[in-house]
């Protein structure tokens, strides 16, 4: 029993409420909103330290014992995700101060960001399938409003696709829950893990597993369900797009990893090749469509898709090394991906466009922006010494060890294409001679934009240079996922 686990949900909730009372005052909104996320980050680090030293933490809400009540569980994987989520929330909220319009900041931006983080944190912590559904809805409600805030025609166009896809996904998710409950008689994840492992006819659960797979694939933008993402993400302001790119799809991926390691372990000869295929095709399609784009936001949006393929590949390999690679890749990708979007926002502030052909020549006048772009971009492409290199190396090595030659080859090839895309942005946007008027080309960027980008860039470097402790941590997290006995024991007690 540890009430600490509730803080990641209570802190943002309390922040939202105080923000509602301070409706309409921009300074108060900024201070309380950002302060709340900073507190949340501190809590996440604290939880991580506790979980890291004392093992899996559990709380039964309202003292109703598992499997009857709602359980909150923090293992290493979820506590790592909590930290990264709060970090991205904090950085994008700081970045939002000079970039999001005053009206949005006065009324709804900060409460919504906090509400969305509450949903994300709840999804990472809950140990109950239905409760996960509820947290998904909390997160998605907040993200709907964030996406449509401002209400321009283009935003509505993107948001309708996003809303429609998410409603379909939620419906499938709910149908999956219904089937699962009818079949297994429980929705507590640890209890499910026990029951499914002990059951002879667990293959009967394949129908509900498939519903979950499709629902989470929709949310995670896996092939063939990715088309909504590039249509909707680029329409929002950059601070919001970066926040989404870091978190929304990754919660879908988190749910996939949680479900398919903890309890959907039946029929592995069917599921693992399916996951590998889905991951491989997602990588290829994402990176190839990105190569044909000339709008910075759209290139980056398509890259979100291809990067998710890597994480799913790690899950499909289903070895400790593969899952450790997936976790490392997820952390790296959240940080680097959000950062490239933030840099794209800077470029927009300097040049007033995202079209690569019109940007050109940034390197000459803004070497710092160029440097800040190169770090996350090369990180994504997997160039040493940045974090992407370590992530790709872990996955490729795991792939060779598991003797899955095709998917590993695809992963290597896609790395090359990613490099191509990033170099294209570099060549067109930064390197090429500027065609416009040079005289007006000495704008200053606000510090609140530079600091978050610099911090995230620093993390990308640190993850790559000082990779060893992080890799070791991911290995331990992967061990906990592959062998869930400690998870089950923590939730259901010794006597199960």
């Amino acid at each position, binding site marked *: *029993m540890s*009430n600490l686990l*509730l803080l990641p949900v*209570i802190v943002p*909730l*309390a922040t*939202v*409420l*105080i923000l*509602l*009372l301070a*409706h309409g005052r921009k300074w108060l909104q900024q201070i309380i909103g950002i302060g709340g996320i900073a507190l949340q980050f501190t809590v996440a680090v604290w939880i991580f330290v506790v979980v890291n030293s004392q093992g899996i933490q559990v*709380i*039964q*809400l*309202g*003292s109703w014992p598992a499997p009857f009540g709602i359980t909150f569980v923090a293992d290493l994987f979820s506590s790592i995700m909590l930290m990264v989520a709060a970090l991205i929330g904090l950085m994008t909220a700081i970045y939002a101060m000079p970039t999001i319009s005053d009206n949005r900041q006065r009324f709804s931006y900060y409460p919504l960001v906090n509400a969305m983080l509450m949903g994300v944190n709840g999804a990472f912590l809950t140990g109950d399938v239905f409760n996960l559904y509820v947290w998904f809805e909390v997160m998605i409600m907040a993200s709907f409003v964030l996406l449509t805030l401002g209400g321009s025609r283009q935003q509505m166009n993107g948001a309708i696709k996003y809303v429609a896809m998410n409603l379909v996904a939620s419906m499938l998710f709910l149908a999956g829950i219904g089937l699962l409950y009818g079949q297994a008689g429980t929705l507590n994840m640890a209890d499910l893990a026990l029951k499914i492992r002990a059951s002879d006819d667990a293959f009967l659960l394949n129908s509900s597993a498939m519903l979950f797979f499709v629902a989470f694939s929709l949310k995670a933008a896996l092939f063939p369900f990715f088309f909504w993402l590039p249509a909707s993400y680029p329409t929002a302001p950059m601070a919001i797009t970066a926040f989404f790119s870091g978190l929304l799809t990754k919660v879908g991926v988190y749910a996939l990893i949680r479900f398919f390691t903890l309890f959907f372990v039946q029929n592995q000869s069917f599921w693992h090749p399916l996951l590998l295929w889905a991951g491989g095709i997602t990588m290829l399609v994402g990176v190839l469509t990105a190569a044909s784009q000339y709008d910075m936001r759209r290139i980056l949006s398509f890259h979100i898709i291809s990067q998710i393929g890597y994480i799913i590949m790690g899950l499909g390999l289903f070895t400790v090394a593969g899952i450790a690679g997936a976790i490392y890749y997820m952390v790296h990708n959240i940080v680097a991906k959000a950062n490239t979007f933030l840099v794209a926002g800077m470029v927009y502030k300097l040049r007033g466009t995202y079209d690569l052909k019109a940007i050109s020549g940034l390197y000459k006048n803004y070497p710092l922006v160029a440097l800040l772009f190169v770090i996350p971009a090369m990180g994504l492409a997997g160039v040493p010494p940045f974090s992407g290199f370590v992530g790709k190396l872990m996955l490729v090595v795991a792939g060779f060890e598991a003797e899955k030659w095709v998917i590993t080859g695809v992963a290597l090839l896609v790395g090359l294409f990613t490099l191509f895309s990033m170099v294209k942005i570099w060549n067109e946007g930064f390197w090429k001679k500027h065609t416009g008027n040079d005289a007006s080309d000495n704008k200053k960027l606000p510090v609140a934009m530079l600091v978050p980008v610099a911090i995230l860039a620093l993390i990308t470097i640190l993850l790559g240079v000082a990779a060893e402790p992080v890799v070791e941590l991911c290995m331990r997290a992967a061990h906990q996922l592959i062998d869930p006995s400690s998870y089950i024991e923590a939730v259901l007690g010794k006597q199960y």
Partner: protein
Amino acid sequence: MTTQILRISSKYLKPAFVVLSLVILYRGHNEPGGGFISGLLAASGYVFYMLAWNVETALKKMWIQPVPLMAIGLLLALASGIIGVAAGEPFMSGQWITVLNITLGTPLLFDVGVYFTVIGVMLTIMSVILEKVDQWD
């Protein structure tokens, strides 16, 4: 919709709705009722008033505006969970006290929170919609 009959009756119906909603709120623990339905009832009293007069007049009659009311309701609900923590048990564990032979507990506090939240949400939505309707007239 500005007939004199409606205006006068809404003046007397508003407090009646609120009192009735409080009765239903209290009996909600063991019998049909509770925070959600009673919140809707109380809100409908105000909505009736908005229809008969207009949104502005109705909002002026309220001590607390809908958006802060929502926040207060949610804070009460949150507090009902935290009382369990203060008693050294997990979040949301029920705590009970007896005052003058009436047993009060955190579930009632939670319901009161829901009550205020529902009123706040309903009145926020309705005032936006009714303002639009006024513009069409």
